[in-house]
């Protein structure tokens, strides 16, 4: 038997390591802590990716709808259905309508205001990501 065969055989037959005895209790302690959390906390934790993506998608859809639909017209039907809530809906609709008008008609150096707002938002988001990543990298390097 040559060295390679011998080494392969030894590696293949190497049994699993035995973890420290405290590992199982430590894991179960954390599991029991999680199990005792309220159901909504667990739902949030277990499906946070889904929630995040859904929220993002919904926000984008609402933003797009805001530009395509007139908020006043859209909410007037709701107002008609529930007269008691009409003042709230009316004010909200007015505010949204004004916002849409300003975003559509406003210009900064011949650039539509909504485009400027979008660019600034994207740039801020990017800056935050880069800053957080840099801080994490520096902390990891230091540690």
């Amino acid at each position, binding site marked *: 038997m040559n060295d390679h065969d011998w080494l392969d055989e030894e590696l293949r037959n*190497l049994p699993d390591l035995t973890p420290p005895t405290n*590992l*199982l209790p430590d894991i179960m302690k954390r599991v029991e802590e999680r199990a005792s959390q309220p159901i909504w906390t667990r739902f949030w934790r277990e499906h946070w990716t889904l929630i995040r993506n859904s929220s993002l998608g919904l926000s984008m859809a609402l933003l797009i709808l805001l530009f395509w639909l007139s908020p006043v017209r859209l909410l007037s039907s709701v107002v008609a259905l529930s007269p008691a809530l009409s003042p709230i809906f009316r004010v909200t609709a007015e505010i949204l309508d004004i916002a849409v008008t300003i975003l559509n008609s406003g210009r900064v150096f011949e650039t539509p205001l909504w485009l400027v707002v979008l660019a600034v938002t994207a740039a801020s988001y990017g800056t935050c990501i880069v800053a957080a990543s840099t801080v994490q990298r520096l902390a990891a390097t230091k*540690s």
Partner: protein
Amino acid sequence: MAQVQEFETLVRNYQNMVFSVAARIVGSVADAEDITQEVFIKAYDRFADLQQSQSIGGWLKTVATNLSINHLNRYRARWRFFSEQENEPELAAPVEKPDDRRELLELAIHKLPDAQRVPLVLFHFQDLSYDEIAAKLGISLAKVKTDIHRGRETLRKLIGNRHE
């Protein structure tokens, strides 16, 4: 509470395997403990799905491997992790002389530098191909082959003289 008890059974059945994967990749018992805990916490969060699965072991092994590699990437400078190492590892380092031959081999694996140990463990213990290892570690195929070859050479130097 019944679910917690069922989960405890799962942990008992798989803790050795998960711990071994983590310990052999990161080369540190303390870090391997942390990673093992994280793996089982993730498993608990997906326990309902995993109970229906026929490949819990495979899932746990994959998660343990990925978390271990992430751990190395995060906490060690990348240039140092997979840099070409011209210097031979410290073979003259004092090797304890355990009676058990397997313990000696385990110790030798732990003494390998990261760049050699990680691909070697993925190849021999996770049964990944060279291509899969290269993709997982983000290094070239040639480097994977070289590192595994060097790792094996180092292991043979460390324990070969005890081989009958």
